């Protein structure tokens, strides 16, 4: 069944390529085709995740591979959701390569299905890790929209261009969603940690970096909501913030051993 996983990876890549061509050549037919491909990829990816969940007998979010796969899946869900609301082509242009890249990262992780280790057998498992996947996905799309914003600005678009404003606004809204979900991640993790390890906060590297990311996005939101920062500065902030997210997700597991090390061990 791994073929479903690799097929979805290839289809996501194809969708991203077709989307880039459609956007750069301004051909609506191509972007429509890209969306269709993306949907096919999503169906394959969902099929694989469901199969894996059935075989494992749990929600497939227990190790680095499964989380990365869930993260990519959440990017697709949010990408489609956002596109349905705003019809902004850049939503898809951001979501397609983002989901492909995250799924590519997953492809390099050990894929073996293992029993859930005792520390992960908790009612908080789905809420904590599921909201992390969606939170990271929202931040990924926000960063993608930030990149889009900067590219369009480089192409000579004016700050007052309505499409740029829309990108800016959607990026901000994604940060709002991601921030709310990251708060859920931190709090559900704290309650879970108290049940498992007796302390709701241990300054474990993963916890600390989640807090660092949270603080950075809190600064982003203050600059946006109170200081009215918009446009280029916010685009850069969302990209830098997403680098922190990536470090929290992958870097911490690789470089800073701690209580969350089982994520890499599977």
């Amino acid at each position, binding site marked *: 069944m791994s073929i479903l996983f690799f097929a979805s990876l290839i289809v996501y890549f194809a969708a991203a390529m077709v989307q880039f061509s459609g956007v750069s050549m301004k051909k609506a037919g191509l972007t429509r085709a890209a969306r269709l491909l993306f949907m096919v990829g999503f169906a394959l990816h969902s099929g694989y995740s469901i199969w894996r969940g059935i075989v494992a007998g749990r929600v497939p979010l227990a190790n680095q591979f499964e989380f990365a796969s869930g993260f990519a899946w959440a990017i697709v869900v949010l990408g489609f959701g956002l596109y349905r*609301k*705003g*019809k902004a082509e850049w939503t898809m242009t951001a979501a397609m390569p983002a989901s492909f890249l995250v799924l590519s990262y997953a492809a390099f992780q050990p894929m073996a299905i293992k*029993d859930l*280790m*005792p*520390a992960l*057998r*908790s009612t908080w498992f789905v809420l904590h890790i599921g909201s992390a996947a969606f939170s990271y996905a929202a931040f990924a799309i926000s960063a993608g929209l930030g990149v889009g914003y900067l590219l369009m600005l480089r192409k000579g678009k004016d700050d007052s261009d309505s499409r740029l*404003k*829309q990108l800016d*606004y*959607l990026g901000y*809204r994604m940060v*709002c*969603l991601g*921030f*709310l979900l990251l*708060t*859920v991640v931190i*709090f559900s993790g*704290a*309650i*879970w940690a108290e*049940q*498992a*390890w*007796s*302390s*709701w*906060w241990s*300054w474990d*590297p993963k916890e*600390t*970096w989640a*807090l*660092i990311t949270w*603080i*950075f996005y*809190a*600064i982003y939101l*203050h600059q946006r*909501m*109170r*200081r009215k920062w918009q446009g280029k500065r916010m685009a850069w902030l969302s990209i830098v913030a997403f680098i922190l997210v990536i470090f929290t997700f992958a870097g*911490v597991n690789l470089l*800073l051993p701690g209580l969350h090390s089982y994520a890499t061990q599977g």
Partner: protein
Amino acid sequence: MRRSLRFFRSMRFGMILLVLVMALSVVGSLIPQKEQAMTYVRAYGAEKATLLMALGWNDLFHTWYFLALEGLLCINLLLCSILRFPRTVHAGEQLMKTAEDSSTETPCDSAQLQRMKEFLISHGFRKRNAATGEVYTRHFLGFYGSFLTHLSILWVLLFGSLVLMTPQTEDLTVMPGESLVLSDGTRILCESFHIEDGQGKLDYASTLHAISADGKQEKIQEIRVNEPMRFGNYKVYQQTYGTAGRVRIVNHATETEDTLFLTESCFLSIDGQNGVYFEALYPGFVQDDDGNYTLVTNTSGSYPDPVYRIQTIAEGMSTSVLAFPEETLSLGEIDFTFLLPAEYPGLRIKHVSSVLYGALYFGFGLMIAALYLCFFMVPAAVSVREDGYSVVSPKEVQEIREALTIAGKEEEP
């Protein structure tokens, strides 16, 4: 005084504090915390390690300056919450006033206006009559979002710190069938412990029987990771586990029998001179063709072929021997029968305050609700007059308008 108060409650000050907390957190996450001094010397060299420890970076999150930053953040949050409160309470009235005072932004005819009104009602707006016409409003609760968010952060910081600072925890081991007696007389009997469940999956579960000091309350529960037992003001966690050797000692002279757990080296003797010196329990062994044994020391935690390494001491003579489970050594009137090893749990016993935990979890819930209000319940008001309408919101008129447009539902009359 007023100036410094203004600074302490300012967003700029709050941002400075957040950046500092963030920067120190990065440092604290990169440097291993609470390690032995030698660990730092080995990792960074003597000079850097000395500097690092002088700065307290070996336990950065408990340094006075990190705690001071947290304290200042609390002051900043408290002051800005106090400042924000009256504005929050009156924000709705203020918005209504702004709506009433606003001039028509988008002129339109009566049919278009009717469509606009229907659109607003279908999108959850409530009609309010004003002196100048009608004002359609929604999500006024959202005005409390920012205030409640800051208040809840303060709440979580305060109660979180209290919860972290106040618990009294104790790590204890208990052998199956034996009891622990806590300082207030509460008794915790470990009825059983197993590492694997019936299907061979790792489980690490202890069955505990807790009895209050007066004997009036008792509770039996199987605890495991993620499933601690709550009993009175105690919470008992399944923390670690270990494997202990067991020996049954029969004294034929007195016709007494006892079974002991062996967790560390010890001398088992009646007269203090003759007996068995237990050295260690090994998980396995390999026997070569000549019958020689090599003891296996693995760290997997399992004991597939346990073997005891002991010394028998009799008449001043010491002899090293290996003892296998169910093997009996007789020394005079005493029989030592080595049994299969037993697994035992390491328990963490924490004295908890329900009030503090309740307050902390309330803070978590409040903050999530407040953030939802803040981000997804943006207060909006649309002033509708006979000649057209205008979109009004507290500060971000453009943003609300864009939100409505992005919703894809707004029909420009």
